[in-house]
């Protein structure tokens, strides 16, 4: 089913919207959550919370593309659950994703003002536009979807080591880009 048709079902408040959303993006939602959460039941709960979040926000939202919207909700909910329960459970793989990000943006940035956070996101988006398809794919899969390097290698029929090196170089370029943009001290 096309995204527009699924969104139309949400606007009609038809429960079939959730069925179709799960059919089309359920695997992506669970994978995104599973990359962050270590617990099968937590992943299921996160997926359900994601569908609830989509149900509660469409309408009035009319997101395009729908997959980005849904996966962003899943990602945020999974991260929230992860941080809330981290006293009892750790996910070293997810910690590794956060460490890598911290590594390429180590300088203190004042993010208390919301617009500065959005400015940084926009700068990173502009940076992504300068990359090759593959480098951009690797970066987004690793740092938005929190995939492991091995999973990315499986998706792309590539070698983990090569992907790791490409990610490292992309992070170096990002650091340089943000410095030149004046966003890092």
């Amino acid at each position, binding site marked *: 089913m096309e995204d527009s048709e699924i969104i139309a079902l949400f606007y009609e408040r038809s429960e079939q919207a959730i069925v179709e959303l799960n059919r089309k993006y359920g*695997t992506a939602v669970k*994978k995104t959550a*599973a990359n962050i959460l270590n617990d099968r039941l937590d992943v299921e709960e996160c997926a*359900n919370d994601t569908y*609830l979040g989509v149900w509660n926000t469409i309408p009035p939202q009319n997101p*395009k*593309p729908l997959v*980005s*919207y849904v*996966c*962003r909700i899943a*990602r*945020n909910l999974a*991260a*929230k*659950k992860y*941080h*809330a329960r981290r*006293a*009892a459970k*750790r996910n*070293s*793989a997810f*910690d*590794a994703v*956060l*460490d890598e*990000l*911290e*590594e390429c943006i*180590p300088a203190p*940035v004042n*993010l208390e003002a*919301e617009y500065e*956070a*959005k400015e*940084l*996101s926009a700068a*990173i988006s502009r940076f*992504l536009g300068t*990359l*090759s*398809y*593959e*480098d951009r*794919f690797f970066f*987004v899969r690793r740092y*938005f*979807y929190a995939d492991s390097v*091995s999973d990315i*290698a*499986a*998706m*792309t*029929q590539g*070698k*983990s*080591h090569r992907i*790791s090196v490409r990610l*490292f170089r992309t992070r170096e370029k990002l650091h340089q880009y943000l410095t030149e943009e004046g966003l890092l001290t």
Partner: protein
Amino acid sequence: MKREQLFTVIGDIDDRYIAEAFRYAPEAAAASPERKANMKPKRILTLALAAALILALGVTAYASGWFGLSTRMIETEIPDFGSSTPDVTPAPGGFVASNGEADSPEAQASLAWAKAEERYRQADWDWKAVDAWTAQQEDPACEIYHCYNQEMLDTLHGIAEEYGLRLHSEVAYPMTQEQFKQVTGLGDFLRGEDNFWQGHYIFEDGSFKGEGELALEGGRLVFTLQRSRAGVLAPYGMYVRDPVSYDEWQISQDGHSLNLALRQNDTGFDGLIFFHEGEDFITLSYGAQFVPGTPAEFGREGAEAVAACFDFDALCGGEPDLDAVNGRTVAPVKPKEGLMSTADFAETPEYQAASRFHSAYNEYYDARQTDDWFVKGQYMQEYYAPFPTGVEELDAVLQELQGQYALHFPTSVRAINFGSWARPEWLTSLMSYRVPEGATKEDFHLGEATEEETWALLGVENFLRSEESYLASAVAWDTGAWQALIVYGSTSYELCYVPKGSFCPTVRAFLHPGAESWAYETACGEQVSLTVDGEMEYPRFTTPLGLYETDTAYVLLQFPGMCSAADLQLFADNIDFTKFS
């Protein structure tokens, strides 16, 4: 920059790129200008030949048994663990059982069960039905092997029978390192003061699995450690992707031969160590997170440094004694004169008022939940916002309570949540919070809070007795009442301080107010009254409670959910009640 902030910034990148990365498009990669600019025809041919040569060498090496991994690994396709590109070809690789060489019945059975589990994992489960079914099962294999219905359980037994193996019959979950030693009969096997280990579960034959951290030069390293024994269908194994990418070699350490495997990536590495002695199979796996900000040059030297952190001799043998955890019993003592029982506490205005509000708040909360997945009636929500609540029906309850009980009601509240000052009104428990519509997650955090500030918020000296516990989260009201989350080993529980004459909204109602309690002499020498509050009545959890009384306050040890009497005693032993006045 806070890691969570970085994660959020990345989350707000352009939607187009998120959608673009949903599915890999090789044709897009081939058309990428950057790729074309860097590759020259002659070099492509050379690289292709080199790749083929490396692959051939790798296959040859595996066939000849040069590498330890080959003797443990069964070649098989890696299943798709919910990838967002379901049409991707399953990755080649292998499966390593925790307790046998590749051709052993243990390894073959372990793989067969992993494949069966994968098929069942992909099904859509009715979790309420699963909960109801597992609650009725007496076969310990249900819990140990995560069987959700009779078909799964029958499949499991069938595999065990086919390969002539037994199933694990008992499991213990040690919460602390001290318990782990008691239940395994093992001594210290981890070298180095800054290294940490937490055994998660141990079976009746002494097999166990757990995680830990090593402090190595330049960073900390997370590891998973398994010890398994022959003759049983082990409930856990490991898939290994792209095994040819590992560098493998053997070393001698403390007179033993260890098989090491390592592969590099730009932030670190992922490695394996195999050791086999007698009936004990030891598998150590570890990965990344090393020297942030610099490319990792871990290499064989680093892998051997990991191995050197372990005394593999000390990991073998030992007489398992699951009773050390599972067989702990209630240890009542004669109550000292004047010791308040939990039943007596239930008669106090402090309990009566607070528990009535706690129940009213949960009923209010439940009435507003409309999702199928939400289970009403658990009474697990907490209210941390200021008073009055601004909600008519809740404030009506408050007014009634204020009229009925002469208590000091709070007017302000502060909170520290996992190392940062936080908005208490967003907390739903000491471990979680909800962001209101229109706000962002970043608004929850109000600045970093040190450990000293956390103790200062409570206005009490450090009362934790075990080095395996720490204060993770705290909420304090202007009445002097407070509630704190204590992490202890692999679990956590709450301590609530209620000055006499004050109202503390996080005092929960007993499910069985007349439930028996017992006097217990804690490790600090003080007596407390303990109750597990009877049997759970689904969906409502019990309210296990430890009660300590001073001249001016009640100190309540609360466990959010169910816990055993023995665990309640363990939690109480961790508190130095002499610190409270």
